[in-house]
């Protein structure tokens, strides 16, 4: 049984059909990429899975449980983490604090215990800190631990966002354009990290991406969408060869010749 199953989802904003009947399944442990031209509805699909947007029709299952009716904040405790296309970090906090906030679903204390800072709170803080340090080590963010987000370069912020999602300890991680705005070297690092996530952490990765190099390098299967509808689905090679996908998104060599 697949980890994530998306069945015929659609969302209409007034007259605009941002997503119009998309279905796919993501198996546990695989890296699944969604590609397509801008405005195709890729990030919207993410927002539907995160339940930030309402569903006009369709259903979604995660790990055997239907999540169609859940609210946005009920998704993370199930083990789904995500990053955002335009970075949504907490600007007035440090990198460390941002990562610690990722541990929210693992809170074991209530606010009364927090106010008195009982021993249990301190123990929990140690535990959270240890997990976060593992993420920092993985992503090589040691130098930025106590820096405010507001002063950091774009590439580092993107990495911190990934780190915050990883700190959650998820089963499924949604990466929204992880390589956009990054240099060649940084994109290669992202590729390595995604591989490590799958191999060492046992994560399932669902990503939206424009960088076809990255997609062919790491993705097991690809879904191509345009205008809110599916164009093609299959291995990276199959999708790249598909005529419709080439027409809508990738372009063909005969077009450029003229």
């Amino acid at each position: 049984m697949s980890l994530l199953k998306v069945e015929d989802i659609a969302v209409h904003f007034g007259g605009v059909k941002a997503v119009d009947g998309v279905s796919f399944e993501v198996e546990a442990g695989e890296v699944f990429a969604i590609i397509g031209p801008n405005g195709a509805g890729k990030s919207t699909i993410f927002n539907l899975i995160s339940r930030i947007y309402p569903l006009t029709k369709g259903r979604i299952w995660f790990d055997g449980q239907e999540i169609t009716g859940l609210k946005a904040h009920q998704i993370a405790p199930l083990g789904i983490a995500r990053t955002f296309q335009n970075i949504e970090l907490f600007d007035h906090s440090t990198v460390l604090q941002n990562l610690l906030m990722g541990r929210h679903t693992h809170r074991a204390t209530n606010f009364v215990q927090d106010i008195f800072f009982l021993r249990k709170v301190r123990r929990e803080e140690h535990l959270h800190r240890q997990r976060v340090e593992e993420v920092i080590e993985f992503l090589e963010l040691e130098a930025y631990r106590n820096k405010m987000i507001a002063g950091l370069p774009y590439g580092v912020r993107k990495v911190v966002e990934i780190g915050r999602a990883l700190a959650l300890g998820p089963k499924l991680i949604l990466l929204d354009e992880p390589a956009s705005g990054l240099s060649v070297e940084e994109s290669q690092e992202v590729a390595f990290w995604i591989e490590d996530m799958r191999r060492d952490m046992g994560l399932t990765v669902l990503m939206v991406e424009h960088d076809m190099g990255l997609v062919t390098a790491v993705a097991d299967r690809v879904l191509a969408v345009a205008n809110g509808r599916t164009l093609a689905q299959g291995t990276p090679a199959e999708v790249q060869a598909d005529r419709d996908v080439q027409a809508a998104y990738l372009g063909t060599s005969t077009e450029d010749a003229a």
Partner: protein
Amino acid sequence: MELLQLLFGGIANGCIYGLVALGFVLIYKASEGVNFAQGDMMMLGAFIALGFGNADQMGWAFFLAVPAAMACMFGVGWGIERVFVRRIFGQPQFALVILTIALGFVLRFVAGSIWGYTPLVLETPFSGVNFYFGSVVLGAADLVTILVTAILTLLLWAFFAYTRIGLAAQAASQNQMAAYIVGVPVMRLNGFIWGLSGVVATVAGVLYATKGAIDPNIGLLGIKAFAAAVIGGMGSLPGALLGGLLIGIVEPLAGRYAPGEFAQMSPYIIMLVVLVTRPGGLFSQIQMKKV
């Protein structure tokens, strides 16, 4: 019949709230700033008109004094933007809130120092003039208020919707950096809008003064006007007027038909009801951010 009388008076009052609210919304629409001194600008405008127009002051004709006051207040509004608001450019929104609260005190002090704190009456050609329709008395002052408000709202709405300056102002309020890049002179525009807001405040002040005596503390009406602007949906000009009318009508009706203290509370209860059901006001301008 009594109901009609109450309604008419309420609509006239509502127009004044609406005009002050318009002033709020003007500035908000152009720079997403909140001018808590709007009520005090209204007060100052009324006093300047009094200073020009009253027999024992400068003694000018009413229809000369009012435009002169409007011109003065344009200067005051523009001046406030130029000297104070521009200095806090780039700071978060509530810095402006506090700045304007403090400026409100200053305006009150200025008015009090020049004209004193005892209530004065503005001399107008239509105070005391009434029209009689059966048993309903319609004051000329109220009629003028309603008429002027309608015209002014229409003009301002058309200004924002159809003129280049209006569109530029809207652009600047949505994304300042982008507005700069396409060549909108954001700072100069802001100065103009603040001046315009001063003019609208003067009109409101003069109309208010036609209904009774004025003293430096009438600016506190600004709080109700602010509520009106918010009910209408901050950023919507017709909404501001509608909010003002709503409060203006509910107040006397509640005073007449509701038990004692509820009359005072009524505009605020209405406001809470509106905000709870439509968190962005009646003509909500809030949209979802694309993430």
